[in-house]
């Protein structure tokens, strides 16, 4: 089950890399976060960790529903460009994505040797980190860059829940508040941009 969810997590991120429409991108980000939340629920259930179940529920509520909704509202309010063509051509992205995956899978091999449980998940979350970086690189517009940043945060969260068998609750709450702060800051930035225009 965990393998299945982690596969869907990576798959939704890869599909997001090839998306050319903003709302579709938000949908894939929401799917990505939903898979992360379900993963946290499943792992938390197997570890009997109530804190992790709580973070899973919060991930689904905040990241899978809240943030895409806020970003969609923002994009309607500030008339974002909704056609977001990646600046890296698809032909190159098709070669780049497997190259990144192979590279990171081999890169994380020493780490996976040290770990006993969930060894593969570390490799997949590091590759998700790189793919999110690629998502940030390949777009010029602000909105997809934000999505890239948020997916990177998702990847780190995945690393947190799979590699450590559960971080302290306080740290995770802190991350959530950081994220909300980031959204507020982004909102302010848009306001400022609008004033200048």
């Amino acid at each position, binding site marked *: *089950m965990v393998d299945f969810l*982690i*596969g869907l997590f990576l*798959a939704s991120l*890869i*599909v997001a890399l090839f998306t050319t429409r903003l709302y579709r991108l938000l949908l894939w980000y929401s799917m990505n976060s939903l898979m992360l939340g379900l993963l946290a629920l499943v792992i938390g259930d197997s570890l009997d960790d109530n804190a992790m179940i709580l973070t899973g529920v919060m991930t689904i509520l905040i990241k899978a529903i809240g943030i895409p909704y806020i970003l969609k509202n923002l994009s309607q309010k500030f008339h974002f460009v909704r056609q977001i063509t990646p600046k890296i051509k*698809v032909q190159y992205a098709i070669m780049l994505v*497997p190259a990144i995956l192979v590279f990171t899978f081999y890169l994380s*091999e020493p780490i*996976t040797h040290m770990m006993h449980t969930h060894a593969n998940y570390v490799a997949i979350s590091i590759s998700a980190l790189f793919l999110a970086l690629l998502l940030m690189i390949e777009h010029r517009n602000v909105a997809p860059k934000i999505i890239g940043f948020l997916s990177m945060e998702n990847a780190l969260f995945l690393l947190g829940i799979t590699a450590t068998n559960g971080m302290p609750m306080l740290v995770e709450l802190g991350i959530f508040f950081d994220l909300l702060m980031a959204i507020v800051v982004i909102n302010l930035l848009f306001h400022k941009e609008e004033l200048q225009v």
Partner: protein
Amino acid sequence: MILYCITITLLILLAPLLLSYIKVTKMLLLFKRPISLFQGYRNFSKLMHKETIISKEASAITHYAPFLVLSPLLIVLFFLPPVVQGSYYVSFVDAFTITGLISLSTFFLMLLGLDSASAFGGMGSSREAFISALVEPAMVLTIFSVSLMAGNLGVGQAGVNLSEHFPKEHMASFLFSGISFFILLIAENGRIPVDNPETHLELTMVHEAMILDLTGIYLAIIETAASIKFIIFASLFAALFMPFGFEFSIPIAFLIFIFKLFFIATMVALLEVNTAKLRLFKIPNLLGLAIVFAFLSLITFYVLGA
């Protein structure tokens, strides 16, 4: 042996029904009054009674090609994984044979398009060549990675192995190859993001453009071939990517299999309603995604073993 024959007959009989089912689902979702579920059979019998007219420019190819389009697909039907326990199956036929037979059928379809010497036919053939050339690498990679997980190169044996002990530890790479195969199912059968089977608009035609000049019995054969191609892909998907329900008793196993086929058809119909058709030169992007997922499935299997 009797079960084997029943399976093949069932697949052939179900094939037109499944395509009509997709159409009915789409019409219901678009709030239109749906056609009958048996429209596929009605069309077939209507076309069988019609007079066959062939263009004056057409050569002998037009007389042979419809049969040569249908026959490789009929051969593929014999190589599919078994549906019920105790059924006879061909274990030694691998992915290359099936891909090769399907592309043989596509080759004759393209010849048929070129043969009528109309501008439309040639255009449709060139588009079909373009798409099927891109489908092939992803198809081979996908079926290979599934065969690796199943531990056998033969497609029939792979289906049996998967349903006997499902590779739970390889769930991630299994999922990736499933996504890749679903994209291929849509691309090879000319469903909406790649080709629209319902219109005769120049921009959207791929499959329809090639068979525009056919009438009567030849058109009936080609349409049967299209529906059989869909059921081949659907039953490969059902056997390789939804390997459950094999261990039940024979009638229940058949019912589960038919249910799986209709489930796949529903998924295709939902996708068709929800997406717009891609521009022709955007299709490599979609198929590139299929190649990425197929490759990802292989490297996840090799490097991570997940």
